[in-house]
């Protein structure tokens, strides 16, 4: 049971993210929802890479014993980098929308030509 706690946290994070994305009307909160889903997914990948009793592959002179295959960590790093770019892009678009419509509420926006 104790081993499943990270996965329960993943489910909670993804669910909270989807909830924020679907039910919040403020664009910034929608974007925060996506960021939370992304953290959940990254957390999932890191949790997959954990093997109890094995060493993390970070030593030059490795101690004897089993060592973890570093693929999930590599995936997580790539995904974090992509996530930052996506987040910055979405926030900059939100700024532009605020300039054009005067509000971030998706229900109230009126286009200023």
């Amino acid at each position, binding site marked *: 049971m104790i081993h499943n706690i990270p996965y329960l946290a993943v489910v909670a994070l*993804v669910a909270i993210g989807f909830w924020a*994305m679907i039910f919040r009307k403020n*664009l910034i909160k*929608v*974007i925060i929802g*996506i960021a939370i*889903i*992304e953290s959940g*997914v990254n957390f*999932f*990948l890191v949790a*997959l890479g954990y093997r109890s009793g094995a060493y993390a592959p970070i030593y030059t002179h490795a101690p004897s014993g089993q060592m973890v*295959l570093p*693929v*999930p960590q590599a*995936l997580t790093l*790539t*995904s974090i980098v*992509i996530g930052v*770019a*996506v987040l910055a*892009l*979405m926030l900059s*678009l*939100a700024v*532009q*929308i605020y300039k*054009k419509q005067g509000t971030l509420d998706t229900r109230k*926006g009126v*286009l*200023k*030509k």
Partner: protein
Amino acid sequence: MSIDWLLIHSPALIIAIPLFAAFTMPLIKKLGNKTRNGVAFATVLLIEILVIMLAKDVFASGARSYVFGAEPGLTLPSGYIVPIRILFHVDGMSAFMAIISATIALVAVIYSLKFMEKETALDRYYLLLLLMMVGMFGMEFTADLFNMFVFLEVLSIASCGLVAYRIHLADAPEGALKFMVISSIGALMVLLATGFLYGQYDALNIAQLAKELQFNFIDKIALVLLLGAFAMKCGSFPMHQWVPDTYSVAPAPISILLVVSTQVSLYALFRVVFTLYGISSNVVVVGWYLIVLGLSTLFIGVTMAIPQKDIKRLISYLGVSQIGYMLIAVGVGFSLFANPVEFEIYGFRAIEGGIFQLINDSMYMGLLFLVSGALYYRIGTRNLDSMGGLARPMKVTSICFLIGSLAIAGIPPFNGFASKFMIYETVYRFNPIISIVAMLVSVLTLAAMFRAFSAAFMGPSLPEFKEVREVPKSMILGMVILASIVVFFGLFPSLIVDNLVEPAVRALISRPSYIISLLGG
């Protein structure tokens, strides 16, 4: 540097050359606008030549794999239990998709030379356009689920930048944000599914996963996530709202690349369904899922298109409904996958129709978007109500629009008829009702296109359009290339089906040969 060397390394070069050219664009800008346009054009032309060379070789002598960081052919690292190489695998289907992407990118760049002339920061425009190509080719060639996620994100981010390119338009940031939200959710779902599969089988390689897949509960969750993500990205029914918002604000050459990028998502969907899961999944359920998705997409798309006043939104909604044809045809084929007799009689032909429809769709949708771009270029509006009588000053444009609209409605002798007829006759044997709905949608498409044509081109010439002239030559060239492809494919469909479509479909459905060519017997 012989031809053989080029062929061996072409899967990597097709990704590397546009990537390199993209990031040199801001430097090349210093040499003047002509040089910048010339380099962008030379890059896409070179890629088109490389893709055609590679495709010819793949169709003639079978699939090619490319291993990064090792001898060619050494797909498994020696001494390892699990294959963790970075692999590209180009089979008939990938090569077929690469031809579509390269051709449309070439046309888009030719068209952009004049169309985008008045805009600023064109070095960044070409940078993002080339990055979009990188994303598409990467998704087509990769044999690795995680790389597919990375290239999907490259494609999405680059397209998002281009959708918001005319940021001065009031609704551009909104369309771009919508697109980015959908894309990033889709990509995160793909990543989550990759995690599920990796956690069980310790592999990211599609062939290795396909070999070991057991279709247990977790695999089913992963399948749902992957199907949902790619269906969302290709603009099928419940998530189709982003398509018109995005296509209508993007510049016309980008709209046609966006059409291709939805088809690349469709390719990823087919790759997941046929190669990754294939016969080991419940083919009838997955097939019917695709059929229902396709039917609702068809119907919703066309009914939303009819009342539109904005010409680009009208064409975008029709683009949504065209995706439905491919989903239906391939869904019918896949649901017969477990039944070899019926599959041989009409299932295979249905998939052929769907894949033929895919290349035809990219051509006539491209043509229609380019024509709407030409109208916008000359009269500065997308509103159909304020157009009229434009056939007199813009003769070539109006003929191209007529060809495109007859092709999209499936009227002979244009290419839309050839592929849609294949879909109707095979789907009719599967279930007549689906076929009848598809034909009805075709009629409604004709109605919508006829309305657009008569509103924009027919009628008396309006006084405010006295000064309107034909668009510049490079834009005409872009439209004429696509129009002649539409007519040629319509006149010689069997030539295209035998030489292009059939090898692609054979490669798509032969899951064992995909696994063997990557992992060995």
